[in-house]
């Protein structure tokens, strides 16, 4: 199994959920985050002083999935969250040793 960490723009949250859904992934965990990278923060003005917020708001999804679903999910998420502008975000793929469903104790694929 894989654990996918999707970092996307907040305005894409709903679309990403739909993309996951259409890839057959019925659950996810969502965290508010902020990030920086090629995209620099926006310049704001407060009382006449310009300042640069050096991070941008992002939303992080953590999604557990079977190995076989990975590439289709990535494809769907890219379509949903991509705008072609910098700051669209990243997908991190890590190995998931196991999953446990707390309610039932099921493990592995059945627990996703």
């Amino acid at each position, binding site marked *: 199994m894989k654990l996918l960490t999707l970092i996307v723009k907040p305005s894409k949250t709903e679309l990403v959920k739909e993309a996951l859904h259409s890839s057959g992934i019925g659950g996810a965990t969502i965290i508010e985050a902020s990030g920086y990278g090629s995209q620099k923060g926006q310049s704001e003005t*407060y*009382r006449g002083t310009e300042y640069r917020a050096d991070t941008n708001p992002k939303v992080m999804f953590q999604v557990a999935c079977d190995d076989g679903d990975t590439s289709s999910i990535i494809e769907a998420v890219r379509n949903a969250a991509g705008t072609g502008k910098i700051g669209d975000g990243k997908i991190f793929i890590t190995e998931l040793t196991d999953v446990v469903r707390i309610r039932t104790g099921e493990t592995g694929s059945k627990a996703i």
Partner: protein
Amino acid sequence: MDEIKFAVDTFYAIMAGALVMWMAAGFTMLEAGLVQKKDVSEIVTKNLGLYSIACIMYLACGFILMYPGSSLIDGVIPGIGSSWGLSTALPIEEIGMEYGMDYSQQADFFFQVVFVATAMSIVSGAVAGRMKLLPFFLFAVILTGFIYPIQGYWNWGGGFLSSGGYSDYAGSGTVHLCGAAAALALVTALGPRNGKYGMDGSVNAMPGSNIPIAALGAWILWLGWFGFNGGSELIISDEASAIAVSQVFMNTNMAAAGGVVAALLTSLFATGKMDVTMAINGAIAGLVAITAGPSAPSGGEAVIIGAIGGVIVYFSILFFEKRLKIDDPVGAISAHGIVGIYGVMVVPFTSDASFLWQLYGVVAIAGFTYVASLIVIYVINMFISIRATDEEQAAGLDSTEIGVEAYPEFD
């Protein structure tokens, strides 16, 4: 007939006083909204405490110092009145009409005491985020019990400014400039908040934490100012006074409106956006600007006087923050001090006050208050450190001084 006039004027004085008292809430909200989240409970505590201290100290000695009926040196140092101490200033039998009072002495005291609290409220905003609580309260004791009353005596207690010809109807100078000069002295002694200025001299914006609360503060001040300026006519019970009072209400409102519009337009031209905190400061600037002479101008002139105040406060805030590197989180020194000076100096344009005496007043009030405050704060600092340490500032004064976070569940 005389009795009903006495009653109506007393009624008027206490309603005006209640409106001015309400300004304490306005300063609390304004400052709570414009400081950072971690310093909010502390600024709230400062405001509750300073108002209370001001009331007690003014009762204990300030009122008598300011209205002594006599003077030690030439109208500069007030003599000490007849009933220093924790009581009404005059014995209860001497407060009525037979002593020539137009309204009750207690109403007068009540109306006066909220003014000194206003002056002290100006200070709390400027020193936010780094001044420790206890030395602040000690300073409040001295300012409200002694410094403010002494210079207040010059203008309103029969001192040299009033006899000379200085004209300051409700206190652009006597209250607002005084508060701002004290604020400047403390800020001089304290230095900026940690993180306000980079090593390289760069200025860091430290945005206010709660804009609607700050705007509420501005609205409260706006409302309270009707009492502040309107009440300063003191009498409403005859036709001429009633007309004067309502002219003052109208002009106070128009000047604030002018200040808002001017500050918004200035912001729009300067940055392309309409900064809400500048609108707030514009309102206050308009109010301060009209305070020295609210009864003489027409409504249209009041708009213009306020609008110029709104422009001044915009550039003054930037100048203090960027050029002078003076950190004033709420813009109090600009709105009350710089605009206070402007307010005093604009009086001769709409009345026959003398420029020279107005200037004289500005210099005397600002100079005396600044120097006296500086001395006091250095003395206090010898005993209790006035500046929060780096760790304290980083953790936030709410946690180190108050023990209560302002918004514990909002993280």
